[in-house]
């Protein structure tokens, strides 16, 4: 009997550990040097579209510390490596708690992308939980909302277009059948590719936009973002491009999957 209990506990422990994917590698770099495929984003300040203090009269810049960020979104091929190493994240095995039924629906099978054209395109149809698990497995993390917004605000290089123009041109395109290869849309002054123009991206704390103090409900978030008259807190009411991004984030739940929502990873210095 004692043996049976012991046996049982070991299996039980195995069950508990199953969802903790062991880190594949922890990029070891001399301090300050970016790991391969990542860019060191310098510390800086920027004005968020939606202010931390939710007060239209005190538009404050937000200070962002230096951090590393993937230069491109995570691709289908990269995500496949993760699923192969952690089969509990395969399409047929992921619990409904962690992803809706659209999870990796564009792949041919559990461990097969099945379309050579999209192997190096950003992975999409993944939930926040999956993006978070991938990041941890790589020894990385998802960028925070502030980090992502700050990094995405940098001007494009080699083009006479502003970030806003790139975004609006992207929004006005009909949705594409396949996503462009990661790194093929545009590069910004930090050296990051495709922060706009290809996929939306999950951020660690996408659920951190709460409108106006602690008495508001989720529905108030939506109402305040969508009611033009109530767009207080917004730094620039004409900033339709950012408005769309924040409204989109506000509509997400962590288990949702969307065909043009991907992610990239970040890391502390």
């Amino acid at each position, binding site marked *: 009997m004692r043996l*049976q209990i012991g046996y*049982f*506990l*070991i*299996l*039980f*422990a195995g*069950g*508990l*550990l199953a*969802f*903790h994917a062991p880190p594949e590698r922890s990029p070891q770099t001399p301090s300050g040097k970016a790991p391969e495929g990542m860019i060191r984003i310098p510390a800086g300040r920027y004005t968020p579209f939606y202010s*931390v*203090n*939710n007060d239209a009269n005190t538009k404050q810049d937000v200070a962002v510390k230096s951090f590393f960020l993937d230069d491109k979104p995570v691709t289908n091929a990269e995500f496949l490596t993760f699923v192969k190493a952690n089969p509990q994240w395969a399409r047929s095995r992921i*619990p*409904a*708690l*962690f992803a809706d039924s659209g999870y990796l629906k564009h792949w041919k099978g559990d461990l097969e992308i099945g379309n050579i054209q999209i192997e190096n395109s950003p992975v999409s149809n993944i939930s*926040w*939980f999956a993006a978070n698990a991938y990041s941890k497995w790589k020894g990385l993390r998802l960028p925070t909302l502030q980090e992502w917004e700050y990094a995405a605000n940098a001007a494009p290089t080699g083009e006479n277009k502003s970030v806003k123009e790139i975004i609006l041109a992207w929004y006005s395109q009909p949705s594409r059948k396949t996503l462009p290869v990661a790194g093929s849309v545009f590069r910004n002054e930090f050296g990051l590719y495709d922060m706009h123009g290809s996929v939306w991206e999950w951020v*660690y*704390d996408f*659920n*951190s*936009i*709460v*409108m*106006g*103090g*602690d*008495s*508001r*409900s*989720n*529905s108030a*978030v939506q109402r305040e973002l969508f009611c033009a008259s109530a767009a207080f807190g917004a730094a620039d009411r004409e900033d339709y491009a950012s408005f769309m991004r924040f409204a989109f984030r506000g509509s997400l*739940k*962590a288990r949702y999957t969307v065909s043009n929502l991907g992610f990239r990873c970040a890391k502390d210095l």
Partner: protein
Amino acid sequence: MKNTAKIIFPLLILFLQGCGNNTQHNQSRREGNTEPGQGSDASGQGKQLEAIKELPQESVYQMTEEWHDQQGDTIQLKNLRGKIPVLAMVFTHCEFACPRTIADMKKISSEIPPDKASEVIFVLVSFDTERDQPQRLKEFAEMMGLKDNWLLLHGDEEAVRMLSMLLDVKYQKQAGGYFAHSNIVTLLNKEGVIVRQEEGLGLNPGPMLSAISGL
């Protein structure tokens, strides 16, 4: 081997705590498995282990992050298996919304039918990873007159963020140690699946109570 022991031992303790919390539930499970026709074949034991191990696909008890309660004990949410949790995310320095949410939960507590009273547990999980340490939670429970059927939990930032994702609670840390957050009371069934969520303050306890009666 030493490493294995290091992993297994804390888990063993966790598991035993889990047993303590829901003795009745596990008891009935064991009885179920000794019935003739169940688990009598060679794979019976395997099935039995599966049955205990496996949670419903939608169960939030699949999250493995650890928490500390107001007594300082370490728990995982799955230790609540077999109970009926009524759960909210709050912080103890909150001056407006959280006391009202707690009042809403107390109201539910006072109207629970006697046959369910021993099964329902009221759980408060704090957003405030810095200040709401177990000792503070204990003092807060005393101050608010929260009895033994209340469980107050402290976790690290990752655990709190993960739970907020699972419950679809929005929150943001603000200057001065305050948190902006949505006010949601969640009812879980005995397997940790979300049965009902009520959003807002000054809740009518009726729908929650009838949902509890059905569990």
